[in-house]
């Protein structure tokens, strides 16, 4: 599978996760979100950027419970809860946000 934007093609796995981390760009994240019918707001970007930093540091995409707790620590308890995160990413915060962040599917996700 692959995603096409502006005439360029990017390889993905069968669920739409980027095959190569280094292919990622803001434009690509926005294109992937649009395909899911989702417009990325600042609140979305906060989570996406957080995930990219988390991966950079730990070489792993966190499971949803871990993400929720870590967001709570970083951005406050009003954002570190599943209600807030599921509203932003209805397909599952870790799964969906990791996809837009260009990361593999989270470890501990099935």
């Amino acid at each position, binding site marked *: 599978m692959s995603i096409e934007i502006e005439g360029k093609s990017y390889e993905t796995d069968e669920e739409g996760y980027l095959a190569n981390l280094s292919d990622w760009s803001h434009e690509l994240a926005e294109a992937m979100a649009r395909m899911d019918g989702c417009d990325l707001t600042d609140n979305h970007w906060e989570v996406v950027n957080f995930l990219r930093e988390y991966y950079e540091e730990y070489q792993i995409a966190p499971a949803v419970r871990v993400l929720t707790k870590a967001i709570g620590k970083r951005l406050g308890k009003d954002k570190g809860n599943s209600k807030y995160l599921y509203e932003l990413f209805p397909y599952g915060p870790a799964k969906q946000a990791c996809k837009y962040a260009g990361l593999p599917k989270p470890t*501990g996700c099935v």
Partner: protein
Amino acid sequence: MSEPDSQAGGTVKKFLYINRRAPHGSNYAQEGLEVALIGAAFDQDVAMAFLDDGVFQLKSNQDTAEIGTKNFSATYRALGDYDVKKVYVERESLESRGIGEDELMPLVYEDEDDDWEEKPLISVVDEAELREIIDQADVILNF
């Protein structure tokens, strides 16, 4: 698998992951770590024991840039985020390999209920303590 699976009511079993392999010569270490994290994400009670060449997995300052593999040693630092709070390292294995306790990665977990205070994750245990730890696990997985 030492117990029947017929426990209703969500009894949490104690899982012990025994890691005995060096990190970069084979995939065992990386896969063991991933399986332990997945288990922890599903709220298992997860403990990890590092012995024999497994103690090398926790050596600080691993840098795989030149050998062109993923530096998954960074991922051990996520164990605390996954609520793994028991990481045992066998003293005898460290000693015979010339590795000091202070040469292990300083793994910590942040205690949510204590203003995110960082607390150490690793306990160096001797053979006798490790025997008890193994004895008390409900399920043991080997990597």
